[in-house]
Each structure stands twice: as C-alpha cells, then as structure tokens.
C-alpha cells in the first residue's frame, strides 16, 4: 500500500464505481418509467440519497450517544463528521426532489408533511454544525452539540414515517413490489454506491475533525484556525 492511502480511499473508489455503474444502468439500460418517461430516472439518484442521508443522520445519533457517554474526542469528531456529511446529503436530497417535483407534481415545492419535515431535519443539523463552530470550550462544545444532535435526530424517523402517518403529495415508500425488477437492480447498485461514498466521506472527515480536536487539546489557548501574528525583526 502506498503511504497516505487508507482503507477509506478503497471504499471511496468502490462507492464512486458503483454509483457510476448504477447510474449508467439507470440512465441507459433500465426502461423509461411508464408515466413519467425519462424524468423518472431521477429515482436512481434521489432514492439512494434519501436512504443514505437518513442513515447518516442515524450515525450522528449513535456518535452523539457515544460522545456524551464517554466524553471522548473520537466520538466528538464522529458527531462533527457524520453531521456534516448528512447535511450535504440532505441538501442534495432537497434539490433533487425539487428538480423531480417540477415536471411531475407541477410545483418546485409544497409544504406537505414529507417535505416540511425534511426541511426541518436539514435546518436542525445545520444548527448542530453552527453550534460546533461558535462554541470554543471543547467540553462544552461536545456536550451541547451532542445534545442538539440527539434532539435533531427525533425528526429522522418522523421524516421516514411521514408518508405513512399523514396525507402527503410525496409518494409513499417504494419497495421491490412497487418497482419493476429491471429498475430495482440499478436502484440497489446506486444505493450501495451512495452508502460506501457516505462511509468514506464520513471517515475522511472524521480524520480531519479528530486531528483538529487533538491539536486544540494540546494547545487549548490557541485554536488552530487562528494564525499567530509574528512581528518582523527589528529593522536597524
């Protein structure tokens, strides 16, 4: 193995490879959707993003519990990493959904329960990231962001169940019974691609977060983002 190359780089390559293959299948091999035509192919992007986005937010929940239980920097870094990747996925999800909604539903956005809860979910995890940015004291940051993550997580099962609990414009769950088999395969491949991509991104981001937290612990009075001013030597 080359120096600097870690297991997550392999997972990243696998994820990107599966995504490329799954999307190739979805765009060129799978049949057009009967009602939506080619527009329906966004299914292969949107559904994996949704599944993996919700899964990533559940990792934030696990990391937040670990963080409060142990007080360890490793868990704290995991909260930061997974929350950030989750926010990226959730933002992508909202944009993709909007792009899909316009030609099928005839609107870019509507305040139906699925869309509303998803927007709240995105905002609440953005709040977690903001809290981590504005709190300087490490122990306080760990506690506050972990508590905020656990509270924000409440919404994740609600987002998932919203299409079952309430009337929505958004369609209910898709399953292999409601998706024709030539469409299931590219969907599964893309979903695994997205899963590996998220695992790799979370791991890479975790290493950065952990390094920063470790540096901060060594020099607590000097946060790493703040460059030290060096005065020029005396000019004679």
């Amino acid at each position, binding site marked *: 193995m080359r120096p600097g190359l870690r297991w997550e780089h392999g997972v990243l390559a696998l994820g990107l490879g599966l995504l490329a293959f799954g999307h190739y299948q979805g765009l060129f091999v799978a049949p057009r959707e009967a009602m939506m035509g080619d527009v329906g192919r966004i299914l292969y992007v949107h559904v994996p993003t949704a599944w993996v986005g919700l899964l990533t937010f559940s990792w934030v929940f696990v990391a937040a519990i670990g963080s409060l*239980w142990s007080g360890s920097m490793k868990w704290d870094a995991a909260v930061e990493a997974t929350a950030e990747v989750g926010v990226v996925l959730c933002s992508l999800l909202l944009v993709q959904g909007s792009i899909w909604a316009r030609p099928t*539903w005839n609107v870019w956005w509507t305040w139906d329960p699925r869309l509303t809860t998803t927007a709240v979910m995105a905002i609440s995890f953005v709040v977690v990231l903001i809290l981590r940015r504005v709190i300087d004291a490490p*122990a306080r940051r760990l*506690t506050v962001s972990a508590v905020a993550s656990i509270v924000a997580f409440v919404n994740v099962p609600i987002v998932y169940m919203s299409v079952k609990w309430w009337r929505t414009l958004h369609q209910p*769950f898709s399953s292999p019974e409601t*998706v024709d088999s030539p469409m299931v395969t590219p969907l599964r491949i893309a979903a695994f691609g997205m899963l590996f991509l998220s695992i790799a991104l979370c791991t890479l981001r975790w290493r950065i977060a952990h390094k920063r937290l470790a540096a901060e612990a060594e020099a607590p009075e000097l946060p790493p983002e703040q460059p030290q001013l060096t005065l020029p030597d005396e000019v004679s």
Partner: protein
Amino acid sequence: MNPTQRRLFLVGALSVAGVGLGVVAFGNLGESLVYYWDPTQLVEAGDKAEGATVRLGGVVETESVVWVEEANELSFQVADAKHSVAVINRGAPPQMFREGIGVVVEGTMGADGVFQSDRLMVKHSNEYRAPEEGTESADLYATVEDM
C-alpha cells in the same frame, strides 16, 4: 464538565427525544396536520368550507376533464370512494395530468359547489413501471385509492 453531568445530559436528551417522537407518533397529530381534504370531508363540511383556502386531494374522474383553451380553464371532477367535487383550475393542464391520476388542488370552495383552484399538483404513486403495451394509466395509479 464531569462524566456524571455529561451522562445526565445524555439521559435528558434521550428523554426529550423519546417524548417528542412519542407525541408525534401516537399523539393523533394527523387530525390537525391535514395537508389536503378529501372530497368526502369537503362535501360534509358544506357551507363551512366555503371561502376558505384549502387543498383538495383525490382522483381525477374518468371522462370528466374539459380543457377550454380560450378561457385558460381546466375543469374536472375530483373524487374519492364516496363523493366527487367539481373543480375549475386556471391554467393549462400539467404534463402528468390525466384521467384516473391522483391530484391535489389549492383554492377555495365556491357557494355554487365548484372548487376554484389556482394551483394544480399531480400526485405520483410509489409504483415505477416499465411501459407495457395497452396499459391504462388508471391501472398504474391503483395505489392512489388508499392515499
């Protein structure tokens, strides 16, 4: 912050989360969180529904669609299992609009019993099917019946 305090925060956060989820899941929020009314609810509300801006959701009745291009008006019946409501929507029918499809319209119920809509949204089911020869779109939307 000592470990005991931190773990108390953990218990507190989990309790808040658990109660929050419980309220939403079992608190019958469905009653107050209605995204759209179905035709039966709108018909049963009678006069009370008049004038208020609401959403109405149901299935576009077969052979009820009339598109008047000069007036820029699309009229159709939105039905559920029991009732059917006449709807007039301003604007051209969207691409996905057809008979037998699920729709949600935004607008007001008139005194004449006609729902004046200014936004027409088409509901897609969770079924993704490859096109088949001679398949009726209504069959593909069978699942909107229980939406």
